[in-house]
C-alpha cells in the first residue's frame, strides 16, 4: 500500500513538472492545433532528418503541430519519447522506430493510450497501427540493377559477377532489395557473385567485405552497397585492390555527394529513397485516418534509380524528397 501510494505520488509530481515545462501548458486544449509526435530513431542520420522535415512540413500544412522526438538510436530514449508523446496526449504518432521489434512496444503503448500510429519506413514485427509507409525497395533495387547492367554493358562487358555488401537479410527491406536487384541481373549475363551482410555498418566492415568480394572473384565487375553511408569503404577497397575502373560501384540510398559522384561516373548509380516524401505521406495518411477516411494498410513509395543519364532530370526531386535540400 505504501509503495503503491509512493508510486502514485511520484507520478503526480512528474506530471506536474511536465505540465509546467510544456510550452503548451498555458494554452487551452481547445484552442491549440492537434499535436502529432514523430518518433524517429535518430535525427542525426540525414535520412531521418529529411523524413522529419517532410513530416513537419506536411503537418504544418494540415494544421498540426508536431513534436519530433529522436531516440538517437537508443531504445531507452525511444521508449522515453513514446512515454512523453503519450503523456502529452498527442493526436497521433508517426513512428520511425529504431527497429521493427522496438516498434511493437511503441505500438503497444500507443494502442493502450488510444493513439493512432502511422509507421514510416522501418517496419514492425507486430502491433496495431494505421498504416505503414515505406519505400518500394524491390522496385528500386530492380531499376538500380538495370542501371548497373546498362553501365556494365556500356563498358563492353557482357558477363561477370556482382558482389553485394548487404544490409541484414532478415529485414524485409534487405530481402526486397536483394530480390529486386538479383531479378534485374537475371536477365543479363551478370550474376550475384557473393553477398556479405553488414553487422555494425562500419567503414572497416564495408572495406573488408568489399575486398573479400573483389578478391574472391577475379571476374567481379561491380559492387553493390545496399546502404549508402559507408560507400567510401567500398571505393577504398576497389582502389586498394587496383580495380578502379574495373570494378564499378552502385549504392542504395543517397548521400548529398552522390549527385556529383554519379555525374562523374565514380558511382554508376544509386537507388534513392525519398524520405521527405515518406514523411509527408505519413502525415497525410494519419490525417486521413483522423478524418475517418479509408487508408491502405501498406503504402510503398517509389525509389529513384538515379544514373548519370537521368540525374539531371531527377535532380529537383532528389533535392526535395531525397536530400531535403530543395525548396520546402
Amino acid at each position: 500500500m505504501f509503495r503503491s501510494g509512493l508510486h502514485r505520488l511520484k507520478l503526480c509530481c512528474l506530471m506536474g513538472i511536465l505540465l509546467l515545462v510544456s510550452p503548451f501548458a498555458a494554452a487551452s486544449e481547445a484552442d491549440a492545433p492537434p499535436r502529432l509526435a514523430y518518433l524517429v530513431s535518430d535525427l542525426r542520420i540525414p535520412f531521418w532528418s529529411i523524413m522529419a522535415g517532410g513530416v513537419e512540413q506536411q503537418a504544418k500544412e494540415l494544421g498540426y503541430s508536431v513534436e519530433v522526438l529522436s531516440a538517437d538510436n537508443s531504445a531507452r530514449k525511444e521508449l522515453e519519447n513514446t512515454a512523453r508523446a503519450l503523456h502529452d496526449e498527442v493526436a497521433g504518432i508517426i513512428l520511425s522506430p529504431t527497429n521493427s521489434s522496438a516498434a511493437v512496444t511503441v505500438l503497444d503503448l500507443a494502442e493502450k493510450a488510444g493513439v493512432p500510429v502511422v509507421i514510416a519506413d522501418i517496419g514492425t514485427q507486430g502491433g496495431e497501427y494505421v498504416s505503414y509507409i515505406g519505400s518500394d525497395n524491390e522496385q528500386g533495387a530492380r531499376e538500380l540493377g538495370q542501371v548497373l547492367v546498362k553501365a556494365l554493358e556500356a563498358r563492353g562487358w557482357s558477363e561477370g559477377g556482382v558482389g553485394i555488401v548487404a544490409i541484414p537479410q532478415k529485414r524485409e527491406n534487405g530481402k526486397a532489395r536483394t530480390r529486386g536487384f538479383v531479378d534485374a541481373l537475371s536477365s543479363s549475363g551478370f550474376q550475384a557473385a557473393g553477398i556479405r551482410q553488414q553487422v555494425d555498418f562500419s567503414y572497416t566492415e564495408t572495406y573488408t567485405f568489399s575486398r573479400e568480394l573483389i578478391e574472391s572473384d577475379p571476374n567481379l565487375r561491380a559492387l553493390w552497397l545496399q546502404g549508402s553511408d559507408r560507400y567510401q569503404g567500398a571505393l577504398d577497397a576497389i582502389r586498394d585492390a587496383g580495380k578502379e575502373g574495373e570494378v564499378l560501384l552502385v549504392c542504395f540510398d543517397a548521400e548529398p555527394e552522390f549527385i556529383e559522384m554519379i555525374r562523374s561516373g565514380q558511382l554508376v548509380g544509386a537507388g534513392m529513397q525519398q524520405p521527405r516524401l515518406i514523411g509527408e505521406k505519413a502525415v497525410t495518411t494519419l490525417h486521413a485516418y483522423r478524418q475517418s477516411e479509408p487508408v491502405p494498410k501498406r503504402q510503398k513509395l517509389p525509389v529513384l534509380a538515379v544514373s548519370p543519364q537521368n540525374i539531371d532530370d531527377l535532380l529537383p526531386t532528389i533535392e526535395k524528397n531525397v536530400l531535403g535540400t530543395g525548396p520546402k
Partner: protein
Amino acid sequence: MTDRHQRQPSLQGRIILLALLSILLVVPVHGTLSFLEQKQLLLADMKQQADESLASLSKNTAPLMASYAIAEYQKLVSTEAALGQYIAILVDDFQMARILGQPRYVSGSILMPDTGITPYNPADTVQQAQLTAQPYLLFERTLESDGQPLGRISIYMPQTAVEEKLNEILYDSLRSSLLLAITLVALLGLFVRYQIVSPLKDFLASLSERDAEGIPVNPLPGFKYREFSSLSETLNRMIGLIRASRAEIKQEGDRLLAVIEGTNVGTWEWNIQTGETVFNERWAEIVGYTLEELQPTTIDTWARLTHPDDLAESEKQLQRHFAGETDFYQCEARMKHKDGHWVWVLDRGKLSKTTPTGEPLMMYGTHQDITRQKETELRLSLAARVFEHVNDGVMITDTRGVIQNVNAAFSALTGFEPSEVTGRNASILSSGRHDCDFYRAMWSHLLNEGNWDGEVWNRHKAGDTYPVHLKISAIKGQNGATESYVAILSDISDFKAHEQKLEHLARFDLLTGLPNRLTMYDRLNQAMMQAREYDALLAVLFLDLDGFKEVNDSLGHEAGDQLLIHLSRRMHHAVRDTDTVARIGGDEFVILLPDLQNRDAGITIIERLLNATASPLRIHNTEVSVSASIGASFYDHHRAADAEDLLREADQLMYEAKQKGKNRYQLPG
C-alpha cells in the same frame, strides 16, 4: 451342527473379511503414499520445469530487458508460456515502469481459454479473472544486470495437474481396491470354500465317527494340499498313537489287574494328609473281612488291625521312606484276622505325590499274605539250625555235583571251609581209592533211584583218607526234576578201625601178628588160582619147630611166646614180600611161596627159613636154640589138587623130615 458351532464365526467369513480389511487398509494407504510420492515428484518436476523456464528466461530476457527490447523478450515469454503450458508468464519490467512513470510495467503472456497464449494486459479484467480462476503455483525470479534489478519474471504454473494427478491416483486406487477386493474375495471365497472348508468338512466327517472312547474309528482321508495332508497324517499318527496308547494302558491295566489278582495281593491308596485310605477287596479278604465290613476305611483301619509291635516298625519304615532313605516302604506285619488269629502281611508301598511344600501326600501300596511263607521261613529256619548244628557233615550240590552249601560239621570232617568248597565239584573230596566203576555205579543208582547209600573213602584237606558213610538224596522240584542233591557224610573212621581190628583178630595170629589158618587158606586158594591162571609154580611149606616144647617147658610159656614172636619175625624177613608166613597153631607154620621160577627157587627160601629158625637167640638172658622141620608140596596148573591136598602132602613131608632127623626139609618124592 450344534448351536454352539452356529454361534462360532466362520473361517471362510473371517478370511474374506480379513482380505477385505487388508485391501481397504493397504490400498488407500498405498494410494495415499503413491499420491504423496507422485505429488512430490510432480511438484519437483513442476518446480524443475519452472526453474528451467525461469533460468532460460532469465538468461535470455535479462539482456533484452537491459536493452529495452520489450517485444523481443515478450516473444521469448510467449514461446515459453506455450511450451510450458503455463497459466501465465508475467514480466515486471522495472525500467519500463520508470520510463513510463508507472508503478509497474507488467507484460507477458497468459493462456486464455478462447485465444490461447495471449499477450498479457493488466487492464484486462477477463485476463485477471482468468489468472486467478484456477489454483496455481507461483515461481518468480528477479532479473539483474550488473547487480541492478531489472525486473521480475513470474511463472504461474497450473496446479490443476497436481489435482488431476490426485484424482487420477484416487480413482486408480478406488478402482484397484474395488477390483482387487472383488477378485480377491471371489477367489478367496471359492478357494476357501472348495480348498479349505470342504476338506475340513471331510475332516470333521471322518472325525465324527468315533468309538466308545471318543477316538475316531476311520483314518482321516488324504488331502490334496501338503498342509492338510500333513495335518491328516499327523492326526492319523496321533490317533494311532492314542489308540495304541489306550490299548497299551488297557493292557497294562489288565496286566496290572491280572498281576494283582494273580499275586493275590491287597492294594491300598493312602492320602497321608487326610488319612483317607482306599483298599481293594483282597486287602479285606486277607484279614477275613469283606471290604464292605471295613467301611469306612481310613489309615486307622490298618492301625486297628495291625499288631502293636509291628505298627512301631511300620511307622519307622514309613518315616525312613518319607525321609528318602529308602526307595520304597516295606514292612512285615501281623494283622488280626477276623477269626482271631494273626496273619502275616508284607506291606509294601511307594510315595508318589507330595504337596507343594514337599509334604508326603499320596502313597500306593500292596498287602501280600505271607503267612505261609512265614511258616515256611520258620521251618526253614529250623532246618537251617539243624543244618548248622547236626554232627554229620551236610553237603548240598547242584545236579552236576557242584557244591553249593556245606555245614560246619562238613568243614570239621573234611578240613575244608565252606568258602573253599562252595562252587567246586564234590570230587574235591575224592580219595582216589575208588575206581571209576564205583562212582559210575553210585551215579547210576542216584539217578535211577534218587538216592545212594554207602561207604566212601574221602581225602581230608590235609591229605589223609578217611571213611565216611555217605547218604545222598536227590532234592526234586515241583516238576519232579532233580534240582539238587543233599549228601550226609557220617564219619565212620572209628567204626572202620574197630571193624579192621576185629577182622585182624579173626584173620591173624594174636601173638605173632602172622596170618592165621583162615587167612592162610584164603591166600592159598588165591595163590593156587593165580598159579593156574598164569601157569606159575606154587610151593606150600609146612614148618614145625623142633625143640619148642622143651623151651616152653623149661623157660615157661611166656618165653615160648617170645621165641615164637622172634622166630616169626625172622621167618617173615627170610621170605619174599609176596610170600605168606602163617601160624596155624602151636609151633606150626605154613609158608606159601607163590610164583616160583622153579623148585630150586623154593628150596633157596626153604634153606633161608631153616637158617632163620636154627640161629640161636636170647630170651630172658637165656640163649635158646631151636630148629625147624619143613615139608614142601608144589602146585602148578598141571596138578589136580586142592588146598587140603597140598597142606596134607606138605604136613606129611614135614613129618618125614622130622623123622629123618629134624632141622631139615623134605620135598615130594
